[in-house]
Structures are given as structure tokens and as C-alpha cells.
């Protein structure tokens, strides 16, 4: 009897112990809590995706901007690339024709652009005759461009004669560089685009 009651007591204690243990364990998660967690994760995912999309867009925009900038810079460099002349000549040389034809395409793609064409001469010959020669060079370039159907009012001509050499040296190479027409964009120079065909 004594032994049986001891066993019962032990069992009771064990049960109590078990009961105590059971109470210390976390309660099973409620259904509501499970839903919140999923939403949070989804939101995070969405944000990440959004951020990625935004970044991609930004990168694309930057690329496009970069591309536009590059195109504008190239268009600008085509427009301002100088052309050169032979001694005491104002006729357009074959190499200058190519340069000027590239300008024609850019000028057509950018109808708002206006240009100042500045004629220069090398140091040889009279200062005054070279002023006339510079003007004739600028005018020959203008005539060539206008010959492609561009509006003459988009161009103004100027001469500096021999007063502004690119290369102050007195040798054939310097003189060849200095016999030139330079181009300055005087209007419509923002947001230049390249002609479609050349992209």
C-alpha cells in the first residue's frame, strides 16, 4: 500500500512536472501573425523589385542622357570641325567637302542651329589682302553649305585675316594649319542631335 501510494504520488508529481513544462512552451502561432509576416516579406520583395526597376530606369535614363550628350558632343564636333585651304585659294578642297557634308547632315537634323563661319589666312602676303582672302574662304564655305538647300540666313561670315594663327610658327606645316575656316555655333546649340542615318 505504501509503495502504491508512493507510485501514485510520483506519477502525480510527474504529471505536475509535465504540466509545468507544458505551460512554459510558446503557444502555437495564431493565424493572423503568419499573414503579417508574409505581407512584410512580399513588401520587401516588392520594394526591392521597385528599387531594381527604378535603378534600371535610372541607368537607362543615364545611358540615354549619356548617349544624347555623346551625340550632342559629336554633333557639335562635326559642326565645329574646321576646314583648310590651299595657299591663296578659297575653293573647297576634296577633304573639306567631306567635312562640310557631315555638317550638312547635322544642320538638317538640327534646324535651329545657326553658325558663324570665320575665315583665316596664313601669315604670308599682305595683311589686308589676307583679310579679303579670309572673307572669301568663309563665303566659299557658306556657299557650299547653302548649295545643299540650307537657309543662307543660318550662316554669318567673318574674317580675321592672318591675325589669329593656330600655330605661330613660320613653316609649311603651320601655314597649312592656319589657312582655315573655323565654325562657331551662334544659336540652337542646346540638345544637338545626330542625324538618324549616321547613328
Amino acid at each position, binding site marked *: 500500500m505504501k509503495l502504491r501510494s508512493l507510485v501514485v504520488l510520483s506519477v502525480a508529481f510527474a504529471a505536475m512536472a509535465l504540466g509545468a513544462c507544458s505551460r512554459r512552451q510558446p503557444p502555437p502561432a495564431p493565424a493572423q501573425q503568419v499573414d503579417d509576416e508574409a505581407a512584410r516579406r512580399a513588401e520587401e520583395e516588392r520594394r526591392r523589385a521597385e528599387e531594381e526597376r527604378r535603378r534600371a530606369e535610372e541607368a537607362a535614363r543615364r545611358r540615354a542622357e549619356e548617349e544624347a550628350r555623346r551625340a550632342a558632343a559629336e554633333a557639335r564636333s562635326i559642326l565645329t570641325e574646321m576646314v583648310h585651304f590651299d595657299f591663296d585659294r578659297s575653293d573647297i578642297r576634296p577633304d573639306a567637302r567631306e567635312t562640310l557634308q557631315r555638317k550638312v547632315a547635322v544642320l538638317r537634323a538640327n534646324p535651329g542651329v545657326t553658325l558663324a563661319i570665320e575665315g583665316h589666312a596664313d601669315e604670308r602676303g599682305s595683311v589686308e*589682302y589676307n583679310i579679303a582672302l579670309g572673307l572669301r574662304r568663309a563665303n566659299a564655305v557658306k556657299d557650299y553649305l547653302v548649295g545643299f538647300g540650307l537657309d543662307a540666313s543660318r550662316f554669318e561670315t567673318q574674317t580675321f585675316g592672318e591675325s589669329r594663327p593656330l600655330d605661330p610658327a613660320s613653316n609649311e606645316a603651320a601655314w597649312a594649319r592656319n589657312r582655315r575656316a573655323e565654325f562657331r555655333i551662334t544659336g540652337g546649340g542646346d540638345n544637338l542631335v545626330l542625324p538618324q542615318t549616321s547613328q
Partner: protein
Amino acid sequence: MRWLLAGMAVLALATPVAAQRQDTTRLPTGVRLDVFYNTMSRPLVAVRPFAAPPEAAAVAEQVHAIIEQDLDYSDRFVIAEVPEALKAGPVTLGAWNDLGVVFLVTAEVEPFGDAYMVRLALHDVPFGSLKEIQAFRVPPPSDGGFRMAIHALADELVRWMTGQPGMAASRIAFVRPRRGGGEELVVVDSDGENPERVANADLIVSPAWSPDGKRLAYAAMVGGAWQIAERNLETGESHTVVRAPSGAVAATPTYTPSGDRLVFAMLYGNASEFHEYDVARRCCMRRLTRSPGVDISPTFSPDGARLAFNSNRIGSPQIYIMPAEGGQATLLSPYVYGEGSYYTSPDWSPTGTKIAFHGKSRGGWFQIMVADAANVGAPVSQVTQEGENEDPSWAPDGRHLVYTSVRASGQGLYVVDTFTGRERQVLSLAGAKVPDWSPTLRRAAEFAMAGR
């Protein structure tokens, strides 16, 4: 001419002076040359130190230095060294005669109120006589007109000795780069002294003196637009003669010999015109010519009957002469087909007989040349040999030319005596361009005192 014979006799003893720089190997072919070095006609002249009381000694020394240098620069004389024994004391023409001196210049300089009196004397040594003596009242050295007054006395001595005009009392206008950008029009005395800024602009070319020496016309680019302006050097007043339309250039003004009108070139991209404007009345613009090429740099004969100018009508720039009222133009420069000859910047001499220009042929260097205005087709003289020489302008004596030069020994403004070939640098200056020599600005008569 009597001194000439004496001079020839003594010049055998004198040091050979004229530079013998005729280097025929450098001459471009196709140019017919007639360079003459008339060195035998330069008599020996001595300018004795000028006598002065102590208070005028420094001024006397300055006056002496200017006159002696002017006589040297006139290229008509050989200036003698003055021996110590002959520097002061009574004038003993016999001693000077022993030295081979043909003309002796002596002077006394004394204070005269707030000015100075210079009593100049010219002795004809071989004939043992006093040739001329005259007293002049000149401003003190502190006065801006001092040097020009002394130059006028030097010119008077030249006239006494040769009967010909001098060129010391004159100035040279030219253009140089300006510090900080742009260009400025500057005027200096014939000896390079007294630089004076007259105008500035983005670009300036073609300064031109009025025949009375009181005004300067020039072409300038101001804010991208070309114009011709005229400045009165006495009053400092300036006005715009003409503004070129956009895309055109107004350039190379020149005065008619009467001085009341300006003729200039209006350049368009594919044509050019000469226009005339009445600067006296400031009106009456009139077109004289029109050409499909570049017609530029008009210059009048002193009688106003003819005009020389530069034109590329045959494909390269050449010099032509035509009647001032229009008509047939005659080729003056020594053009030879196929030799790339190139001649520009004509200037008609004040004596009327010569036209100077610069140019080259067959890829040679640009040199200063002189053609006979009365004898088109006659040989052209090349008066420079060294380096690149451009834009000649005649001195009022009709024998010296100023021009720009770039050569191994230097660059700047140079002067050549077309009679002897003697050359000198007036100003050492990189970038000096388009010089124009004034007429005579002061005359000794303006300073002459009554009596002796």
C-alpha cells in the same frame, strides 16, 4: 654739284659704307632686277659739337645727337668722326678740308625765354664758305614737340645741302598687338621715338595719313563689325566714316591728294568695290568700281590722276594702275604666267615716280619692290634681300620706305633707303604690321627767327 665732285674725290679715302648685300642667289627668278647702289654720291659731313653756355650744354648735346643721327638716317651723307682738336674753338675750314669733309654743321644753343635758340650754320668746306646760317626758336626738351622741332632743323640742313626734302620730321603709324587682347594703332617718330597710342579695337588695319598730317584714317573690327574711322590727331576727335554691312569688310582707306575725300575698298565674300567718301563734308558716299575678285589697297598718284591698286583678277594678286576716274587697268607688277607670282600692298611715292609693293615669285621670300610708275614694264627693283618683308610705305622724301620684316637678326619695323640699299631697324617689335609713313609734319620755317 660742286660738292659732288669734291665728295667723290674724298670718298676714295672714306670708309666704304653701303652694305654690299646683293645676294643674287636668293632672288626669285622671273623678277627683273635693277638694284642700284649709288654710294658715290654720299659726301662726308661733320656735325661739330654745338657751342652752348653751361646752362644750355645738356640741351645742346641732345640737339646735336638728334641732328647727327637724322643726317645719318637720311642716307645722303657719310657722317665724319669729329677729331678732338676740332671739337671746339674757331671754325678752321682748312683743317676740315684736310679730313675730306664736304659739309660742316656748327651751331650755338642758348636759353631763350622758356625755350631755346639754335643758331645753325652750314659751311661749304671745299669752297671755304659759309653756305647758310639761320636762328631757330625751339621748345625745351620737356615739351612734347621738342624732338619734332629738332627733326625739322635736320630736314632743313638736308635741304641746304642737297636741295631735296628730308624725312626726319615725320611719324610712322602702325598696328601692334595689345596687351590683354585686341590690337592698337600706334604712332612713333621717324626715328622710333615718342610712341603714342591712337586707337584700339579687336583688329585694326590700313592706317592712312591725311595729306596735311593731321588726321589718320584706318579700318577696324569692333564687336565683330568692320568700319572705317577717321581720327583727328590734334583734337583727339574721331568719327566713323562707314560701317560695313554684316558679312562685308571695309578696308584700306586712302586719302585723295587734296585730303578732302577717302577712297576705300568694300569687300564682300565674292566681290569688291571701291567707294569714295567726302570726309570734309562728311557725306556723299559714291561707288567708284565693282569687281568680282578682290580689288583692294588703292593708292593715288600725287596729282590725283591715277590710282594704283591690288587685284587678283587674273587669279593671283597683282598691282595695277588705272585712271582715278575709272577706265582700263594696266598690270604693273612683274607677273609671269605659271610662276606663282604674288604682289600686294602698293604705295605710290610722294614724288610720283615710283610705286612700292611687296611680293614674290616661285615660292621665294616676300621682298619689297619698287616699280617705275611712268614706265610700266620696265625692270622692277628689289630693295630688300633678307627675311620676309611686307607692306612698304614711302617716306615724305620719296626715297625711304618703312615696312615690316621678320628675319634671323630680328623683327619689327625696318627702313630702307631705295637709293643706296642701306637698311636699319626702326623698332624691334614682334607683330608690328601695316606701317604708314606720314607726310612732313613740321618745317624749320615754323621755328625760324627773324634775321640771324
